[in-house]
């Protein structure tokens, strides 16, 4: 039996992923694998995620898009969304506008509020101009 089984003070304090901004993914200290949606262990090597670091996502490629007109209470409408493939993770997140298409290159940008009643802000997906 390990200490954490019996000692409440040894309970792990995991990163609070709900508080992480949209542009950050977790990265495994041991093997470097990335994940975005919470898990207790690295999906590749199984190391505990308790002290996993986070990394800022750079540019990604749009897989699919939608513009939601009927949003839940408190959420601004329209809510432009895109499913985007980044290095090692795939993410659904807000986009700055409804102009994205599959195949576009995007990055996270700015600081925007989604729900009127909450302070939380997130960066949104923005097209990167291809030169």
């Amino acid at each position, binding site marked *: 039996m390990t200490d954490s089984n019996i000692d409440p003070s040894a309970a792990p304090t995991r990163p609070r992923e709900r508080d992480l901004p949209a542009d950050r993914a977790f990265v495994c200290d041991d093997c470097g694998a990335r994940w975005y949606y*919470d898990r207790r262990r690295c999906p590749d090597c199984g190391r505990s995620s308790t002290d996993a670091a986070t990394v800022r996502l750079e540019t990604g490629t749009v*897989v*699919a898009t939608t513009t*939601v007109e009927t949003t839940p209470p408190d959420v601004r409408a329209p809510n432009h*969304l895109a499913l985007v493939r980044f290095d090692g993770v*795939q993410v659904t997140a807000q986009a700055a506008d409804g102009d994205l298409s599959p195949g576009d290159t995007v990055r996270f940008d700015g600081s925007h509020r989604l729900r009127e009643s909450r302070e*939380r802000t997130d960066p949104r997906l923005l097209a990167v101009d291809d030169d």
Partner: protein
Amino acid sequence: MLLTIRTGMPTDVRVSGVGMTPFESDSRGSLVDLAATAAERAIADAGIDPSDVDALHFGNALAEALDESAGLANALAAALGLDGASADRIENTSATGASAFHRGVETLESGVESGDVEGGEDDTVLVVGAERMSAGDTRDVTEAISRLVHRREYAQGITLPSFGGLAAGAYLDRHDAPREALAAVAAKNHANAVDNPVAQLRKPIDVADALDSPVVAAPLRLYDCCPMSDGAAAVVLTRSDSASRSDPRVAGIASATGTHAVAERPDPLAIDSVSAAGERVFDRAGIDPDDVDVACIHDAFTVLELIELEELGFYETGTAWEATLDGETALDGDLPVNPGGGLKARGHPLGATGLSQIVELVWQLRGDLSEARRVAGAETGFAINVAGFGNNSVCTVLRA
């Protein structure tokens, strides 16, 4: 995978009675009243007495979120006079009804719930699913449903219709399918509901109506989405030793989970929980998709009917839309899909939906329905009920 998959082992459980309430936008009476009405109809249909029931499984998804009380299974057992029966509540979001049904089948297969000392021959299980989504105002219900997604998705304002929109856009784009293909699913399912007295939306619509309805999550429009509903459905399950030979048999039932966060699926059009549950159920029932005569598919959004038909092996990837436009999935087609109107038009009271699919299949397999509603000569029925946007799928095969 740490899974024990039983192969080639159809169950000996039969559905000996079914009943449901009409699905509607705003029912009168309490949640337990609604459930009890469906339960009494199933008990009467089975020709048993409430005291014969050994176990009750009650499916309900949103009671607490909508400020109704917990302890629902006990309240229902008392209302029905099932004193002494074992009872519990099952919750699996949109697939709550099918999960309750799955539990009921397992209860009978395990044989441990018999109320009589003699053993398993007379085991009887009642499974009831009910939801009263009108219990909260639309804002509360929408908020409760929006919290079914992963919390990091919730933080982005993502909802189940958002996933429907992303998948629909990807489907049309990848398969070069016309927008009309989605509208055709809605028009078909509305047409099937017109003559179904328990359906919520019995209004025929055509493809043009669907294409004109307001955008919900582009390219999905209002008529691509199921309504919010009140309703209840119930079944009585019995071991085949005591059941009538004309009672449809549960040839197979299987569940599977998938990723919670939809973005973690490498392909947004591949829903692993659907394909895994489908493979398992066909394996257990010892049949192929080709053997199915009638199917109830979880069409919370029109695009889901197309994707699930492909993931389950009824159609090759990228071809279900053409089959739909060609009428293959209509009531008189090669594979009638959602003959009762589906979630789209029969309605989607979360806890009742999966059981209403079973009720529909039993009516079809027993030949209870009018000619306008009947799939001629149906002997094998299939149902899939899906939680969230593919977080957890439950598949059932019934045989006449």
